[in-house]
């Protein structure tokens, strides 16, 4: 994807005016950087067995950016070559965002109970789901439970009902993933016998997810 030329009709100063309610750090971020972050988040999410940290802020910035670009493009000549290129780029960005959110929903629907239980133990800043996703997950869990009750569970003998615990679906965190190190990471513990490996920047590995999940979280490595 040619991120370089996605947002020429817009300078950084204009962008800052749009988002001056964001914190300082984010005001300085360029549209291209936002796109990079969203794309990385998308790739990580697609490859990771569990649900990752939500990226609502970045996504909102990106959405704002897309709306802005659409606005700017209204003035362009439809037959201009640049118009077609920009339009295509917009379609791609929209696909990435939709695909990213869809992927998260899919995980939420599959591991609903597990994710909700985990969220309860997390601090506010550590929450993996955005408030909207959390609401969705709760509604979904309730909906499925109600359906099971209506169709089957209510007709079963007493003892069989209180076993919702057994029905929790959990992701397999030890499934293998491909990763690429973004920076040098010394002595990563791999395997049960405390074997250690140094990852060099740019190197690629195949490894059980759980052993490197914190590297993904700290953005020292990404899933590919």
């Amino acid at each position, binding site marked *: 994807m040619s991120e370089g030329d996605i947002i020429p009709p817009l300078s950084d100063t204009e962008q800052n005016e749009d988002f001056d309610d964001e914190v300082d750090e984010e005001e300085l971020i360029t549209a291209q950087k936002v796109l990079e972050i969203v794309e990385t988040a998308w790739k990580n999410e697609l490859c990771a067995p569990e649900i990752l940290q939500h990226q609502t802020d970045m996504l*909102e910035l990106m959405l*704002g950016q897309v709306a802005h670009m659409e606005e700017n493009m209204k003035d362009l000549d439809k037959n201009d070559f640049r118009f077609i290129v920009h339009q295509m780029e917009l379609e791609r960005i929209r696909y990435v965002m939709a695909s990213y959110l*869809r992927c998260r929903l899919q995980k939420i629907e599959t591991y609903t109970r597990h994710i909700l239980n985990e969220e309860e133990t997390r601090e506010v800043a550590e929450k993996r789901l955005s408030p909207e996703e959390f609401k969705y997950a709760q509604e*979904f869990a309730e909906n499925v439970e109600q359906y*099971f009750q209506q169709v089957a569970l209510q007709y079963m003998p007493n003892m069989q009902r209180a076993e919702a615990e057994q029905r929790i679906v959990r992701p397999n965190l030890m499934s293998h993933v491909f990763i690429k190190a973004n920076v040098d990471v010394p002595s990563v513990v791999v395997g049960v016998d405390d074997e250690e490996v140094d990852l060099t920047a740019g190197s690629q590995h195949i490894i059980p997810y759980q052993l490197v999940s914190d590297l993904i979280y700290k953005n020292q490595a990404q899933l590919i």
Partner: protein
Amino acid sequence: MAKSNKMFADKAFELVKELERSSQTIPPFDDDGVRQVLEEIKAIFEENCAQAANYSTSGDRTLWPLLNFRHAALQRNKRCLLTYLYKRLLRIKALRWEFGPIIPADIKTSLCEPEVNFFNTYSKSLASYMRSIGDGQGIDLTGDLRPPKSLYIEVRCLEDYGKFELEDGEVIYLKKNSQHYLPRAQVETLVRQGILQHIA
């Protein structure tokens, strides 16, 4: 199946297999099958209760393996039944993504009432989630299902649809067997509904 070969939980397992094998969008809800499984569960449970009572009064240890066996049969029945229901839910969810918030009439006849309720709640919840993304801007996640390859696609019209207005205000007339070159994003829904066919 000969009666002598019948085992506990056969019927429940049958439900799951039937569903797995069917190539329909969603096969009719097997009301009868589900009821039979529930009856079997109940019967086993009652038998077990009776014997458990017997066991605690007489202390007859020979009953113990039988109790355990029945309990396992109960668990299996329950598990198969819930699997059947859950697998159906997955297909029902897929309906929402494929056809939008309204179930086509011919499919609706295959669903039982709680399933229709589930679909409606699911649909509502998904819609309100999609509206709430990005501080109320909203994204339609059911669009953009495939990575975009080109802005315009060539489509053939499979049925008389009538007038269709594009975003820029241009009105085209979709007639059966006519071919058009249209913006992908705007006609994606029609393609999924089977009104247009993507060619080339």
